[in-house]
């Protein structure tokens, strides 16, 4: 997937997180949402209604289109979550469904 977003400055990415089990370096001033966008994801999970994608729209805490699982907490708003060392991010597409884990 070719990303639409590019990072402006050349600061070193110094924060260690995992995205769907993969180790990723993040920038200290990023949120989980801008991290995922930078990695080329344009949505972070399936829409709860039907087979469309649930897509981030506002990036300011209003639309709830950026929900994903962060540190085992489902329904976390990625746009409000600063990256911190050790954060485990699971996007909806990578996460086992409720049925599968039951």
């Amino acid at each position, binding site marked *: 997937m070719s990303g639409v977003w590019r990072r402006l400055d050349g600061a070193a990415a110094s924060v260690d997180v995992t995205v769907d089990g993969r180790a990723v370096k993040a920038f200290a001033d990023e949120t989980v949402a801008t991290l995922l966008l930078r990695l080329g994801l344009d949505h972070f999970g399936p829409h709860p209604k039907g087979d469309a994608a649930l897509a981030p729209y506002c990036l300011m805490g209003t639309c709830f289109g950026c929900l994903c699982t962060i540190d085992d907490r489902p329904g976390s708003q990625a746009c*409000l979550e600063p990256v911190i060392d050790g954060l485990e991010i699971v996007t909806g597409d990578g996460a086992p469904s409720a049925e599968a884990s039951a």
Partner: protein
Amino acid sequence: MTRREVRDAVVVGAGPAGLAATAVLAAQGLSVRLIDEQSAVGGQVWRGVITRPADAPPLSGAAEARRAHAAAAASRRAGVDHAAGASVIDARRSGIDGPDGAIEMTWLAARDAGGRVMHDTRARALVIATGAMERPVLFPGATLPGVMGVGAVQSAMKRGGLVPDGPGVVLAGHGPLLQLTLSQLRRLGTAVEAVLDLAPDVSVPGERAALASDLARALRADPALLARGATLLAAGRRTRRYRCVHELRAHGERAIERISFVATGVRRELPCRLLAVHDGVVPNVQITRLLRLEHRWQDGQQAFVPVTDAAGRVSELPIWVAGDGGGIAGAPLATLRGRLAGLDLVRALRGVGASTASASDTVPELDACERRLHRAIDRRLPARRFVDRVYPALPIDRHATPDTIVCRCEAVTLGAIDAAIAAGALGANRVKTFTRCGMGACQGRLCANALTRIVADRLGVAPDAAGALRVRPPLVPTLIGDYLAGDRAVGEPLAGSGHADTGTSPVARGVA
């Protein structure tokens, strides 16, 4: 464990208004709990000013950055309890209505503040400074990944240091924020493919004359602001622009790939990877609605605005609304409105059960602030009126088809809403019951404004009569475990608490 605390005042929102109010309250010796959902102070307008790396290209002028840092420092110095990254779950008025009433806030602390722990704060007064959000724009394909608000582009730039990279970056809509974003992207080396002006051509007789006289008044009142606007518009002329666009559509299999639209009678198609749309901003009324405060529809802003007095106070209640959340007026006025709300709050609290001597201490400062605010309003309001007239809200269904999604969370279409209205849903809340519009994760934040306008339009009634979605706790999706982890039993209300309209416990309603 639910942590309980008692404070003199709670301030919700750490943008210009919330920070200004907080600084006043703390300087007057009040204990303040500042709750903000962002991980750093600044709100939307000053977002990232504090957190961006020093070597990142500046997005705002040096003066603006200085103001942001000064506001943040003022609230830090005062030793305020700042809950950053916290979500307000519930707000309740407790006790009797009136100045002696108290406020109870339930909120979840941030993950990096020791875990998402539930807190209850009881306070004598509340300042709501929750700012603005973008007015919804409805068109087919708007829910595809790659369609975002212009505000999202702003947010990604300010917090995350990201810019969209061409090709296929298109802006659609109108307004000062769109022009600002266009000029910033250009400066940062992103080629914007095209700007689509989504508004109809308003060559109504008399409109031109009214516009000219508004412009003259705005020029006299705030020439600097208009000069900045003119510079932005001139810079934006270098980008291809389509006017009076209608039938905007976003197309793509699983994400946006292209857009189509009609301009000057010709149907066109453009490849597109990011479509950023904008139709101005409206107050975020989620908490004022939750508290069942009175709101009135403002035609100029096409939005509900909470009813307050000149200082931002809600009738006789210990509640103040400051900044754009109390009606859109912009960041410079938000600082003054926050300050005024803070001073008025201090005066009100000191007037209750305190000596009148201490109450009168703040009166001269309050009066001076009131005078300054009114002068600033007099100076800036003509420019705001002119901007509102140049960029009136788009007719809500201008680009919508029956298949167009109005409620993104529950995937409710305009057609489904029209069917509900035809079946007798004679108000926004009836449509909600029929269709689940506004009942998803965002709790109607994004669609409430659109739904009111659709219902008013279809029924031919005033938006006040069409009504607004009722807001209920929890304000954000909350895990049962967050409540169960509390130190009170499920179903047990806080002493003396309860919503005026139901009287049931927040816990029971949160779980239901």
